[in-house]
Every structure is written in structure tokens, then in C-alpha cells.
């Protein structure tokens, strides 16, 4: 780890000013990812601006019936928040499906959105990686890529975004509130993370010295929502594929649906094609299969990760079927 300067910001504007004045600097939230990357030599900021004690820790009701979640709300607190549990179960379940208890106690909402890919080549500075060193190449495409992307990847990068929380937020039409030297702006979560294209070093649309100050949720969608993650081990593993969904069924027909996939792409993958296919369709297994397959028709699996496509389809069908079932089905089992 290289020597670095450290400062603790007194308020949001001070934090933004400190970073704006220090081109090599970074914000430090919970540190559960950034500190690891610094130890690995993947990140070597000259300045850390610690935002961990800024009072962005509130989960507040908004006039439109939604929530505004402060960027420093810890993952554990977010998952346990009564309003989140009651009205946005997919979000609570997604947060609890991520990391470990200890990490969730430290990790923040803003930091969770900004975590980097766990691609093994990205994390090994002795190897090429276009995301870490633009232009150096992507060994994952021919190398070890079982856990990597099947949708939206590029010749330059096949990384996945590791967050569970962001997948639920994508399905729930969340927005990201940013504040930077030029003031505040709001970006839809689905437009916050990028596809890699030929600039895989840019994970998000965030600009220099911009700070995530909050995540906004509109009023919960009609119907019910759930998150289901498939992973190699029962806890503390990144998603092979995951699904966040909200579904409203009236008289056997889908009146509203939100669907997002995790673990498949460089960003949480909002399944608009599937949603379009489902809206108004009968809430049957056949519809769910057809919709999931329509979405995943765009998949371009790599040599060793084609299983993710059928896994994602199965998961989506499972979650939708369970949400459509009067008794809630088997979504959370086991």
C-alpha cells in the first residue's frame, strides 16, 4: 500500500471541495472494498477523504410515498429498516444476501453502489486488465471467466457488477442523488452504472469529485417484490445470477412487473424486454418463461459461463411464479 494523505470531511461541501482540489484522491466510505483494493495495489489514491462520519445516515419518508436513503446508511441498518422490510422486501432481501454480517455492519449504501468488480484479473496488478489499466488487454475473455458477464459485455471487458443491493434498486426504479462542485443532480439507478464498451475503466456516470449523497426510492410498486440469489455457497459468495422482481397480478393477468438481473453484466440488468412481454399477459409459467427467454436472447455467453443464462431464466421464472402464487410460493426456500 502506498503512503496517502487522509482527511475527515466536516460536511458534504468540505468533502467535495477536498476531492476537487486533489486529482488523485478518493472518498472513503465503509472501506470494505476500497481498503482491500489499496492493499492489492489496484487503487492507490494520494488522498482519502473520509466521508464515513457525514450525517447522511437517515432513511426518510418522502412526500411521494417513497424513501430517501442517506448514502451513509449502513447495509445492516438498511436491510433492517421497518419501512424497507415492509414496503420494499426485495431490497431488504438483496442487502441481506450480500457479503457477511460484519461487512454489512460497515458497508454503506453509497459505497455498495460504487464497489468494483471482483474479476480476478482486475484484482491482480501483475496481469493486464482494461478496467484497471486501459489498453492493456482483457485476459478474462479467454481465461478464467466462469463468474463473469453474459450480457452487455464488450471486447474490452467482461466484468460483472458485484452488488446485490443495486439489483433490487434497479428493479424498484431508484434514483441516485449526486452532489458535486457544480451542484446537485439526480440520475436513475438504471443509468448510473455503465456498460463497459471501450471505456471499461468507467464503472458509472459519476463525475470527478461528485459524491453520492442519497438513494431515492419512489413509492413501492403495486403487488409484491422479492430477491433471489444463486451462489456457490450458502453465504458470503457473489451471485452467479440473481433476480429482483416486483409483480402485480389482477384477475390472472400481469398488470405491473419490474424485473432486474444481477451477476450477468457490468451493471444491474433491468429486464425491460421481459417486462414489456409480460405486461398484460396471463400470469402463467409459460408467460414467465417466454419473457425471461426474450430478455436473455441477447446473451452472449463466454466459453465457461453459458450456464448462467439458463440459471437466470430459471431464477426469473421461479421468482415470478412465487410472486404470482397466492401463498407466496417457494421464493425464499431454502
Amino acid at each position, binding site marked *: *500500500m*502506498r*503512503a496517502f494523505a487522509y482527511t475527515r470531511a466536516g460536511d458534504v461541501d468540505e468533502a467535495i471541495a477536498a476531492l476537487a482540489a486533489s486529482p488523485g484522491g478518493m472518498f472513503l466510505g465503509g472501506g470494505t472494498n476500497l481498503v482491500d483494493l489499496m492493499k492489492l*495495489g489496484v487503487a492507490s489514491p494520494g488522498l482519502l477523504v473520509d466521508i464515513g462520519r457525514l450525517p447522511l445516515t437517515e432513511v426518510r419518508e418522502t412526500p411521494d410515498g417513497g424513501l430517501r436513503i442517506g448514502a451513509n446508511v449502513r447495509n445492516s441498518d438498511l436491510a433492517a429498516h421497518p419501512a424497507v422490510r415492509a414496503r420494499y422486501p426485495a431490497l431488504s432481501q438483496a442487502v441481506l444476501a450480500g457479503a457477511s454480517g460484519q461487512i454489512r455492519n460497515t458497508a454503506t449504501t453509497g459505497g455498495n453502489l460504487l464497489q468494483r468488480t*471482483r474479476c*480476478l484479473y482486475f484484482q491482480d496488478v*501483475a*496481469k493486464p486488465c482494461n478496467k484497471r489499466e486501459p489498453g492493456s488487454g482483457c*485476459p478474462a475473455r*479467454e*481465461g*478464467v471467466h*466462469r463468474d463473469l458477464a453474459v450480457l452487455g459485455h464488450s471486447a474490452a471487458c467482461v466484468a460483472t457488477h458485484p452488488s446485490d443491493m443495486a439489483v433490487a434498486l434497479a428493479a424498484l426504479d431508484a434514483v441516485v442523488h449526486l452532489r458535486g462542485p457544480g451542484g446537485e443532480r439526480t440520475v436513475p439507478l438504471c443509468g448510473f452504472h455503465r456498460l463497459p464498451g471501450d471505456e471499461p475503466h468507467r464503472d458509472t456516470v459519476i463525475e470527478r469529485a461528485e459524491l453520492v449523497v442519497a438513494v431515492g426510492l419512489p413509492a413501492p410498486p403495486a403487488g409484491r417484490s422479492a430477491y433471489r440469489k*444463486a*451462489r*456457490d*455457497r*450458502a*453465504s*458470503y*459468495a457473489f451471485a*452467479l445470477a440473481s433476480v429482483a422482481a416486483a409483480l402485480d397480478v389482477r384477475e390472472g393477468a400481469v398488470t405491473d412487473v419490474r424485473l432486474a438481473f444481477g451477476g450477468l453484466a457490468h451493471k444491474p440488468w433491468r429486464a425491460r424486454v421481459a417486462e414489456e412481454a409480460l405486461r398484460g399477459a396471463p400470469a402463467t409459467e409459460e408467460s414467465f418463461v417466454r419473457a425471461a427467454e426474450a430478455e436473455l436472447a441477447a446473451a452472449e455467453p463466454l466459453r465457461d459461463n453459458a*450456464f448462467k443464462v*439458463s*440459471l437466470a431464466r*430459471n*431464477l426469473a*421464472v*421461479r421468482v415470478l411464479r412465487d410472486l404470482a402464487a397466492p401463498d407466496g410460493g*417457494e421464493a425464499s*426456500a*431454502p
Partner: protein
Amino acid sequence: MSTPGPVRLEGREKVTGTARYAAEHTPPGTAYAWPVPAAVPRGRVVAIDTGAALAEPGAVAVLTHENAPRLKDTDDATLLVLQNDRVPHRGWYVALAVADTPEAARAMAAAVRVSYAPEEHDVVLAPGHPRLYVPETANAGVPGSRERGDFDGAYASAPVRVDATYTTRALHNHPMEPHATTARWEDGRLVAYDSCQGANAVQETLAGLFGMDKERITVVAEHVGGGFGCKGTPRPQVVLAAMAARHTGRPVRLVLPRAQLAAVVGHRAPLVQRLRLGAGEDGVISALAHEVTTHTSTVREFVEQAAVPSRAMYVSPNSRTTHRVVALDVPSPSWMRAPGEAPGMYALECAMDELACASGVDPVELRVRNDTAAEPDSGKPYSSRHLVECLREGARRFGWDARDPRPRSRAEGPLLVGTGVASSYYPVYLMPSSAEAHVTETGRYRVRINATDIGTGARTVLAQVAADALGVALDRIAVEIGSTALPAAPLAGGSAGTGSWGWAVHKACRALNGMVDARGGTVPPGGLTAGADTAGDVPSDPPDAKAAFGAQFAEVTVDRDTGEVRVRRLLGVFAAGRILSARTARSQLIGGMTMGVGMALLEGSTMDPRFGDFAERDLASYHVPTHADVRGVEAHWIDETDLLLNPMGSKGIGEIGIVGTAAAVANAVHHATGVRVRDLPILPEKVLG
């Protein structure tokens, strides 16, 4: 002993953090080292530019093959670090940075510029590799190849046949405490606090490498945070730390970074195992072939003896057991918990399950029918073998008889449910040891022996052995272990520690009682001391075969949609001689079984063909079981009296727990799904198909 037995004697120190491990000794003036691994898979070091590294704040020195102390030759070439310009595999150490702080040493290591002349590399184990050969011996000195009877003829004429090939990936030990050493030289003497499984072996190896009298070397391993075999012999960290301390004139601490372990401390090599079983309609085996293909490095030949269990487990009048190996440009493999037996029994016990399906004989009954009183390969009778009792008792406790044998016959919602069984086996090894027992005038006892407690509870069990032998209460006994300043003893390995050390402790304690008795029961001022050495007691070629046996039963769920396999229940019954301490024995057995769950479902690394390294090198990418993966593990044992073993009547229990688990789980997955996955770990995609 039916009570759980005493808690660990050092438990309080461990949970309060006062127990000091190798990296927690900090002599005044300690400097810190950080290694530089080779960044090419094969070649030569052409130049090393240390200028930038030495310009780092806090820099002390950079050791390379050009300036490092010269080492004498040794039979383990993985220890001959920084001696020449050769890069035998990626990750081989090419330099060592030394600085005033660990952070500075890490920064220095990153600043060392190494130029290589790379060469073509060959890192992929392929069954038809042209350089495969049959080694004379495999690990543990067993013959590389054995033939009995006429396998080909018997197999060809067998009414029921199984021919299946099982593959496993490279596995890594990953103890909680990484390899670490703090070394200092004082007046020509070397003191090394080392995380190892046997300090005497480290002392002797260092004496050879540095060309000095071993009496001038002290190696201390008072507490060790896990070993699993990867600390069984000296590893490069202790050599590097000693070299750096000599080179810099300061005490030096070296803790190997987790991500470097896979390349330098050994691994269980990937294996391709072909099993052929020929049997009668009744399932009784007439022909058995177990053919193993694996890799070693170009540095050192280590051959995982995976065919060995097939020489010991079942009746097999016609048998062929062979190993073939190829030396690749890969890190050197070495010991990992139950080397040979763990992967070998995975293959054999899965093949037994396939034979059960093919012959229509219940898997428990099939194993009972193929039980043998003598070790088939040697013809020697077992001193005790209670495999059948373990199978029967396990079946009873598990509820095996209610099982519907048809695959895919049980479902709960989206989950397919299946059960499987496998046998466990581990040989009894014993090694000579010395020990010393002392009694004070006031009747306090002190037992001294260079045993190593790698987390097993060895310290506690040896106190119990001493208390039994002396006939006194445990709280009157102090045990000193973990230093070459104590009477010499073998390593904690081969499940032989307790038996070997305990024998010497027992002998010393009995001798001490004899001395006290000879003085009419009195102890003079200054006390009495008795030493013991079992070198003449441990038979080198006993007339009988000795091994522990067991049976493991697994119940798994397989999610039809995701292919996720979870172990719902795991139950083992073992026959391992007399269990000396129920508390620590249970811990060892369920620990082994848990590691077996990892082997079955999670563990395995990928050799990256382009870069020549194991891709998964940290605990985020190399998955071991979490608590959530281990829901119901039970270990039981049957009392076994075997007076031919040692004075305590004990067999080893450190390794048998991992033997058979993977097969029991894999067989349960087949029962649940009808899919026969012959490649570990059983990841979702293999079940989804």
C-alpha cells in the same frame, strides 16, 4: 472416557489474544520482509533493479539471488530460494524486500523491477501428456504401481462392471494463520519462531541449509493457527526470514501474503482417476483397477498416492493400482489433509456407489459384502477393523433403511433430496519420539516434549495421557510443548502426533513413577526427572496392518432451478481405537468432515494456462464452507480396543474425517438428481447440465 474431557489448556490465552503466534514475537529492532514472486511462468531472471525499492522510505535491503546467503543443498529444492536465476514456475520467489515496517516492505517489493527471459511453459495436466511416467514411489513411500492376480482377465469376465473416471482440481490448505516466521541471529545462534507442524524438522533442515550444528538453532512453534499439511515440512518463509536476518543483522519477520500461498506452500495436485470394478451379481468384487494421473513440479517430485486406498479397502483378488505423473511448470504440490486417501477414497467410494446401482445391491450392504479381515495388498491381518460396525451403526443413526434407492425419488417443493454413503479409511502411522517427565518435591509434574499443537488440542490430550499414566489429577500437570529446546519429537502429521508423542509421554511418566516407587514414594529436593525415547519400541515392519475406519452418510438438497447443492445432514461413525478426549476428537472429526464438504461442493482452483498460476488465491475466490453451509454435522465413534497400537490404544483422528465425505455427498447428489457428477467440486452448472 465418556465425559467430554477437559477444555483446552491454552483456551484462555487463545480467546484473550495473549497466546503468541510466530508473527507476534517482536524482538527489539525487528525488520519486516515482503517477498517478490516471479511474474512469468518459466524462464530466467535477467536483471533485478532494486534502485527504486531501496529509495523507498524505511528501506533496509533487497535480497536477490545475487546477494542472498548461499545455502547448502537439500532434498527439498522448494527451500533453495534466491540461489540462482531460474524461474521454475510463476510465483517462485525472486527477491525479498526488507524494511522498517511491513507497509514499507510491501511498497519496496512492488518497486523491485525484475527483467526476465521467459521460456515456453507447460502447465496443463492432460491425461495423454507425452511426458507422463510411472514414479518408483508415491508420497509416503508407497510403490508407484502394484499388480495382484490378473486384473484384465477377471475384469473381462465379470458379470457386473463399472468403468468411471473422476477428476478433481487443485486444492489449497489455507490455514487461518498464514506461514510466518520471526528469525534472529545472536552470537552465531539462530532463533526462529515459525508457524510449522514440527519444529525439529525445521531445525534440522535449517542446520543443513546453513551448514551449522543444529544445537545452535532453536525453533519455537508454541501456538500454530492451523496447518493441514502445508506446514508439515519447512516452507520457504523460515529460510527467507533466516537469510534476511543474517543479511541485515536485524531480527526479521516474514508473514506470507495469503495470495502468495498457493504458489509456495504446496497444494493437493489435480487428479484424474480411472476406476474399474468388476464384480459378481452379488456385488462381490473380483477385479479392481485404480489408475491415477497427476502432476508435480519441475522442482520436486511429489505424487499424491491416491490409488492407495484401493490397496486396503475391499476384497480384490485381482488388482491394479498405478500412479502416473508429469512434471509441469507449476507450483510444487505437497501434503494436504489425508494426502492420497482423501481424493483416492472420493473416487473409489463413488465407484462403489456406481457398482451398487449396477448390481442392485444396497450401498451399505455392498460395502459389508466386500469387507476383508486382511489388507488385500499386503495380506497382513488388520489389528482391528470395524468398518462393518461403523456402516451398521451409521445406517441406524441416519435412518438409512427408510431410503428409497431410486434416484430422483424424493422432492420437497423445488428441492430434490438425496442421501449417500461412503466409507472412511486412514492408516495408523507411528513415529519414534522422546519426552521427559519431572516431579517436584511438592508433587507437581511437568511434561516436556516438542509436540506441536496446530489447533487440535494436542497440549491438552498429552496432559490427559500423562495424568492417566501417572495416576494423578490433571491440574497437577504442566505441559511444555512447541520448542526444539524440549525433547525431540516428530511433526503433527499423518494423524500420528497423539499416538507417537503420547507413547513417549506415557513411557516417561511410567518411568518417573518407577523412580518414585524405587525411593519408597518420596521425591528428593530438586525433584526427579525421567526421560523416554520410543525409538526401540515403534516397530518398523509390524506383522499386522493398522488403520482407522469409518462410514459417512450425507443428505443433500439440490435446487432444481439453480443447481445449488446444500448438505442438510452429515453423519459419521468412526472406529479409531480408543478416543482419548471426546471434546477434541469430536472437533477434529467434524472439522475434517466440514473440509470434506468443501472438497465436495466448493473447493478447487483453476490453473490459468496463459499465466501459469492458480487463479483463485484468496478466500473470496477460493471458497471454503461457511457456517451456513454446515447445518447438521454429527461425529460418533464406536469403542475399539486394540492393544497392538500403542500403550494408549489410540489411532489417529486428524485426517479420517475428511476421507469419504466428498463421496458421500456426491453419491447423495446422484441419488437426489440422477445425475452422476464425476468432477469436483459439484458446482451448480454440473447439476443443471
